C-alpha cells in the first residue's frame, strides 16, 4: 500500500490524513534505523521525515474545531454551531 507514489504525494501535499502521515513517518524511521541506505537516500528520508513530523504535530495542535448540532429546517438537515 505504501508505494513510492504515496511518498511523493506526502511531500507535495499536507492534505493526506494524519494516520497516513504517521504511518509513513514510522516506517521511514524504521528504514533509517536499519542503516542500509546510501548517505543520499538517508538524508532524503531524514528530510522527508522531519517534514512529516512537523505536519503531524501541526495537525494535533489545531485547537479550533467545530462543534455543531444537526437541525432540521423545512425537511432539510442543517449543521449549526452548538453551545452548551
Amino acid at each position: 500500500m505504501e508505494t513510492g507514489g504515496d511518498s511523493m504525494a506526502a511531500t507535495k501535499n499536507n492534505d493526506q490524513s494524519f494516520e497516513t502521515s504517521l504511518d509513513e513517518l514510522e516506517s521511514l524511521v524504521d528504514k533509517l534505523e536499519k542503516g542500509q541506505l546510501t548517505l543520499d537516500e538517508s538524508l532524503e528520508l531524514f528530510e522527508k521525515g522531519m517534514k512529516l513530523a512537523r505536519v503531524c504535530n501541526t495537525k494535533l495542535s489545531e485547537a479550533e474545531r467545530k462543534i455543531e448540532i444537526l437541525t432540521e429546517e423545512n425537511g432539510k438537515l442543517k449543521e449549526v454551531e452548538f453551545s452548551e
Partner: protein
Amino acid sequence: MGIYTVSQLNENIKRVLSHEPQLAQVWVRGEISNLTKHSSGHYYFTLKDKGSQVSCVSFRSTNRGLKFDPEPSMKVLVFGSIDVYTVRGQYQLRVLDMRPDGIGELYKAYEQLRNKLQDEGLFDTSRKRSIPKYPRRVGVVTSPTGAAIHDILNVLKRRYPVDIILSPATVQGDESAQSIVGAIEKLSHTDVDVIIVGRGGGSMEDLWSFNEEIVSRAISQSEIPIVSAVGHETDVTIADFTADLRAPTPSAAAELVVPDSVALKRHIDSLSERMGQAAIRMISDRSSRIIYLQSRIEPERLSDLVRQNTQRVDELSYRMGRAVRSNVESGGMRLTTFAGRLNAVSPLKTLGRGYSIASRTDDRELIRSIDDVSKGDDIYLIVRDGRINCNVNSVSEEQL
C-alpha cells in the same frame, strides 16, 4: 415499678428493638410514597403496601451507592435495620441497600430480545466495524441538555482536535427509541467517521430505549461505526451488544474514539529523535571511515616510508663495501703464498743449477727423446741467462 420519663420510655423501646435479631437486618418489599429528597442528600419516604406502611430513612452514604434513582410509587426491595427516632417516638427502617422491584417484566423482555438478536447474529464479532484510530469528525447521538454530551465534549476538547456533530435525541420516555433511531439516521448523511450513541446514568426504565429492538437494528445497520455509551459501568443494554464497541460511560466513549494528542505528540517527538540519531550515526560512521582512509594516505607516513628505505639502502651498501674490501685483502695474501709456492717449482731455479731445456725451433716442442729430432734439425737450448741456437749433427742411442 417507677415512672418513666418519655425519653426513658423511647430509649428503652429503642434498645429492645435494636437488639432484636429478627429486625436487625431485613428485606422488605413495598412501594415508595411521600418521597422527600433532602438537600443534605438524605432521603425520607414511606414504604407501603395495600394494608400497611413504614417510615424509611436512607442516608446520603447509602444513596451514593444506589444503582438507580428512587422515585415515588416505584416498587422496591429495601434492605435495612429497624431503628427508633426517639425525638418523635417513631420507629423507622434505616435503609442500607435498595433495589428496584417489579422490573421482572422488563428483565424478561430484555432476555427475550437479547436471545433473539443473538440468534440472528447481530452480536457477532465478525459484524463489528473497526473504530478509526484518528477520526476527523465525531457524531454524537444524545440529549443536547444531558450530562452525557457535556462529558463527551469535555473529554474530546481536552484530548484530541476533532469536529463534533451532535445529532439531538430524546433519550428517555415513550418516544425516545424512535428519536434515537432518527438521530442515527441523520448522521448517516454526514461525513462523520464514528458515532457515539448514549446517555448518562439512570434507572433501568430510564435506559430502556437502549434495550428496544429498533435501536439495536439501527445500530447494526449503520454504515458508520458506532460506540455505545449508556449509563454507568454496570448498565449493560442490548444496544451495547449490538454496537461496534461498548464504552462503560459517555466519558469513556470519548476516550475510546480519539487518541490522546499529548501521548501522540510525545510519540512523534520520539520518532523525530530516533530519526536524528540515525542520521547522526550514519554521518559519523562515514566520517570515521574517511578519517581512517585519510590516515592511511598521509604524507608524513609516505616520507617516513622513504626514510626507512633510504636507511636500509645505506646500510646494505655499507655492508657490501665491507665485504668486497675484505675479499680483496684476503686475495692479496693468498697471492703472496701462491707466488712463493710457484717459485719453488719454477724451472728457472733448475736452470741455475746447470740444467737446460731443449726445444725444437720450428714448433717449440720440448725434446725429451732422440726420437724427437732428426739429423739437421734446428733446435735451441734455454739456459739460466739466455738461449743457444744449435743444429743436430747426429743422434745416437746411449744410456746415461
